[in-house]
């Protein structure tokens, strides 16, 4: 559905994207992860036909994204990373303009999305908060039920409840059979909805992995709060990987083997237990550390 072949584009002073080759199959949800400045948006700009490749190509539905842009757009929904709309209009006027330019007659889906995201469409866009604008963008991207969705950091600006709604929407679209490409720097949201993940750094593709296998090798850090020094000593000597310690709290790294950890914990008097979410850099570090990236 989406194919990148040796896509290369130097943007400025050595930065850009280099030799990206991967593809996203029909009905697949593909997460595109990378730190800021890794080249995620540059990749997406090629899919949208905003930039032309120095070499290589991007195809969606078999159509070249640079030479057949308008045709590609017929079956594509796009949510930009930085949302900015035309001046002096309200949400509904904007959605009407988009629907008009798409020649979209059936507005059921649009109205349902507006309801689902509790969007007050009559608000002038310049008075909207970032989250509200994001919702308008989401409705514009999904309202015509496209075959392919390209979403650039889709949950940024949304409150946790709306992030949840959004991830449900992705699942709904996936069940409908849509192919979804979403960029993100938050691993947890990608982990939840994506089938596969591509990790990009400094414009180069580091790896493309199944989310399942990524999860297996992923390490998790638990912070355990302990009541007495005796238990603390036994926990320290239990052979677990201790990565940090702050008076009464111990950070323990677990990789796959939860049983042993639980058994040790069961013998202690625990007053708190936290899972520390790993950020993307830490996942990268893990990747480099294991040598799997090379």
């Amino acid at each position, binding site marked *: 559905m989406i194919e990148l072949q040796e896509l290369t584009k130097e943007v400025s002073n050595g930065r850009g994207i280099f030799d990206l080759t991967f593809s996203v199959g029909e009905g697949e949800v593909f997460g595109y992860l990378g730190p800021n400045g890794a080249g995620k948006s540059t990749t997406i700009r090629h899919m*949208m*036909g905003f*930039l032309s490749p120095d070499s290589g190509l991007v195809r969606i539905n078999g159509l070249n994204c640079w030479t057949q842009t308008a045709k590609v*757009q017929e079956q594509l929904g796009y949510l*930009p990373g930085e949302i900015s709309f035309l001046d002096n209009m309200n949400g509904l006027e904007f959605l009407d*303009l988009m629907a008009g330019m798409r020649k979209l007659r059936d507005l059921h889906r649009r109205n349902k999305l507006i309801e689902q995201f509790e969007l007050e469409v009559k608000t002038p866009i310049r008075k909207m908060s970032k989250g509200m604008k994001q919702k308008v963008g989401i409705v514009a991207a999904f309202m015509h039920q496209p075959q392919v969705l390209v979403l650039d950091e889709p949950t940024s600006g949304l409150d946790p409840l709306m992030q949840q709604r959004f991830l449900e929407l992705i699942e709904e679209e996936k069940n409908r059979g849509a192919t979804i490409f979403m960029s993100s720097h938050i691993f947890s949201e990608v982990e939840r909805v994506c089938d596969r993940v591509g990790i990009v750094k400094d414009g180069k593709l580091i790896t493309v992995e199944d989310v399942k296998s990524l999860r297996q090798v992923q390490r998790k850090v638990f912070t355990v709060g302990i009541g007495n020094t005796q238990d603390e000593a036994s926990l320290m000597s239990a052979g677990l990987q201790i990565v940090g310690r702050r008076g009464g709290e111990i950070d323990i790294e677990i990789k796959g083997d939860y049983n042993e950890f639980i058994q040790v914990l069961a013998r202690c008097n625990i007053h708190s237990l936290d899972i520390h979410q790993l950020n993307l850099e830490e996942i990268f570090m893990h990747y480099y550390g294991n040598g799997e990236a090379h």
Partner: protein
Amino acid sequence: MNRVLYFYELKANMKTISSYAFGMVLYLWLFIWIYPSFAHSQALNTLLQQMPQGLMRVLGYTVGITHIADFLGGEFYSLFYLVIMSIYAIFVATKLVAHLIDNGSMAYLLATPVSRTKVAITQAAVLMSGLLIIGLVSTVGALLGVHWFLQQSGMNNIDFVKMNVVGVLLFCVVASYCFLFSSLVRDERTALGLSTFVTVLFYGLHTVGNLSTKFNWLSHLTLFNFFDPQNLIHGKGHFALDSLTLLIATVIILVVSIAGFRKRQLPL
């Protein structure tokens, strides 16, 4: 061209267009209204006759004031008209493309099955429609003003309309090179700067070129040379040839702009 986008943009810019158009009409009426007090002033005509030829031309008087047409051609169309139309062309051309690229909203217009070429043609059509509306409203307004405020104008309406046609066509060319900058340069400020610079340069050459016969050659370098209201209003000059030249120039510049926009890298 995309109809939906065209009407949206036209509506969005209607406030600007109508304020330019009606502002122009009000100015025209003011000029027509005060004309009788000028016309009967022997002193003014004597003054004008005593001025050096070059200065007369700069002020827009090639033939002196003998009736309303000279007054409008010399006072209004040689200065106010040029300024108002230039400001419209520069600002609206920049707003229609460069501004949308700078603030990123162009991404939405291009994230539809409407091709870049069509988007650019639509934006250019909006720009030109605005010029036509301003030209039409001010022409009709001026004719009505002359009819209402003056008993006997002695103005040839056909020649007056022809002069307005050349004026609008001149600004079609101005608007189209502003559109070229707007479509091709890196950001909004550069587009605005370049458009202003070129227009002021043309106007400056026009002014200096008319000042003395020594600098007369300069006026051949400027676009504004095509528009000589004092002659046109009396039916002199090459109306058909000049109009055609301006029209062809507009089309060529627009085609280059649109082709350039189609190929450019958009940092959206």
